[in-house]
């Protein structure tokens, strides 16, 4: 972050929002183009990516900015997904209302979990949230009358309203398939979430969270109420997970315990770590890897002569190895590498960029770049 930017921030706070808004609008145009120009199958992959990404940007705020790890975001997504499923039953209400409700319910769950989590650290927190991820799906099986047990709740996905289909057709000459419509819902939600989060972390709360992560005692001495800030970070993150669960429910057309196993929570963690903890852009990149890497890796496995089952397991193997390698070799993830290269390049050109920020005390040595989604 160069000095003029910081100065501009101080004097023109509204420009941060403006710049973020601009970026998001550009992204929106790009999303429309991509969704219209790709096949229904790619559309459905992109819809899948959107819910991973919504949860991942929320998780990266919690883990990267506030230093709290959560292996329980899969369980929070389940809360959002089941809420959506119950509210959309018999088309009781329009889907945006259901999504909003899912977000609120999950945020409330986030208060409870966050309050407990605020008192825990590192491995204890990881273990407790792991237990959360493993335990919560049991609720759905216990209340099988309401929540459908092992078979889960089938969800009637919203169908594109005529005006929307017509408008998009007029604009792009593309037929509005249901896969495409769901991808629009997912990406619309994602862009909105990214815009809000980018502003949040560029602002006062972002600074406080980082301060808490880097040095609790200093932050406390500066008058920060640690517990409250930790819970707040958890609630914001949980709200994202709730929305992600809502999108998942509509895209997958099902909320079932099997969809919210520990594998989901670990996948999200992989996404944010690989992309670079604390970076929204990194979370997006990581989510893209979650969706597009497995088919590619599976194909490579098949080409190498592995059986279908073996090839299918190659993707998680790669995830695991990548997690370890990233932590050992480049704890800042892809975004960290990009930044390092940029700094190196600038130094080489003799402009003397700022030195690399120091690693956080409990964090992962990831740096973060405020509002740059």
């Amino acid at each position: 972050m160069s000095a003029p930017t910081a100065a501009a921030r101080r004097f023109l706070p509204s420009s941060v929002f403006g710049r973020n808004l601009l970026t998001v609008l550009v992204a929106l145009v790009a999303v429309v183009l991509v969704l219209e120009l790709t096949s229904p199958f790619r559309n459905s992959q992109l819809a899948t990516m959107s819910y991973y990404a919504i949860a991942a940007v929320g998780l990266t705020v919690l883990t990267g900015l506030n230093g709290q790890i959560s292996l329980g975001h899969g369980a929070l997504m389940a809360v959002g997904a089941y809420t959506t499923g119950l509210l959309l039953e018999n088309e009781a209400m329009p889907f945006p209302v259901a999504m909003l409700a899912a977000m609120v319910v999950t945020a409330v769950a986030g208060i409870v979990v966050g309050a407990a989590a605020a008192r825990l650290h590192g491995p204890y927190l990881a273990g407790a949230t792991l237990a959360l991820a493993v335990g919560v799906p049991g609720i759905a099986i216990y209340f099988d009358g309401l929540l459908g047990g092992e078979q889960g709740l089938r969800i009637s996905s919203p169908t594109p309203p005529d005006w929307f289909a017509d408008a998009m057709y007029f604009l792009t000459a593309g037929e509005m398939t249901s896969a495409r419509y769901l991808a629009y819902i997912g990406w619309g939600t994602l862009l909105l979430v990214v815009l809000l989060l980018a502003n949040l972390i560029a602002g006062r709360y972002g600074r406080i969270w980082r301060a808490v992560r880097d040095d609790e005692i200093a932050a406390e001495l500066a008058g920060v109420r640690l517990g409250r800030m930790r819970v707040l970070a958890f609630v914001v993150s949980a709200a994202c997970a709730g929305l992600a669960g809502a999108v998942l429910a509509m895209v997958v057309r099902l909320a079932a315990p099997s969809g919210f196993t520990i594998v989901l929570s670990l996948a999200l963690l992989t996404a944010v770590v690989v992309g670079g903890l604390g970076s929204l852009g990194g979370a997006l990149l990581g989510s893209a890897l979650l969706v597009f890497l497995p088919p590619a890796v599976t194909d490579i496995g098949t080409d190498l002569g592995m059986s279908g089952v073996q090839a299918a397991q190659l993707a998680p193997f790669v995830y695991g190895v990548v997690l370890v390698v990233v932590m050992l070799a480049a704890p800042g993830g892809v975004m960290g590498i990009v930044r390092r290269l940029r700094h190196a390049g600038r130094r080489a050109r003799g402009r003397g960029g700022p030195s690399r920020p120091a690693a956080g005390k409990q964090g992962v040595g990831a740096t973060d770049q405020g509002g740059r989604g």
Partner: protein
Amino acid sequence: MQQFLNVTLGGLSQGAIYAAFALALVLIWRATRIINFAQGSMAMFSTYIALVLIESGQSYWAGFAAALLAGLVLGALIERVVIRPVEGGPELNAVIVTLGLFVAIQALAAILFGASFESFPAPFGLSGFSVGEFTVAFTPFSAFVIGSVVVVMLALVALFRFTDIGLRMRASAFNQEVARLLGVRVGNMLTLGWAFAAVVGSLAGLLIAGGNLVHPAYMDPVIVYGFVAAVLGGLESPAGAVVGGLLIGLALSYVSGYLGSELVTLAALGILVAVLLVRPHGLFSRTTARRV
């Protein structure tokens, strides 16, 4: 009455296994201040090595020994190669590395050994003892389970109390700087700590597998139960881990037997949260305030 007895005995033998697993977690925690979330995957992997040997015609005991040996090597190797660089660093980094190992080892096992259910033999009978017409669900194999956990406990106590290596390991765990000054090769002791822990973990894996169906994810719930047991015992104390394991085994067995098996994981979560909020240092900890 018979049901109560069966549920209790089942809980005890499950509890013995959780105790062994918690013991492995505690050993590593004491040595390196890391919770090894890959413990379950490592145990699963060495159990599969045993299965491959047994299927190729070797005896159960050859497989058993091979699995423990594999655990020893795996533990040492993992500490040396991937854990050493994150030791003493930010705690989050170590957590993420062990989680990465957890995923990678599990996938590797599925690639090498297949992802289907396979039956794993037991060295002793699997039908319950009968007293008159009264049958209890306590089998010769359950006796073996409890017996081997007790043996491991005693062996560890002997190791730490009465041997030179044990003393050096305790010194390294207690204070690395001081130990180093006293001429202890701390790095080697940490490796040894991981190796011993992995052996105990592998034993837990073998005991769960015996007379049951195994698949690459069969240890997943045990990670959670073992962690809860270790926290219940205070994470620091091997004896606490064993008591914690037995308590968790019993509690979960009662929940499963009388309330419904789908509530077991929730019950584990409940116990964990209660312990962390009420007695964060475990039921038996005497140490004063250390942040968790």
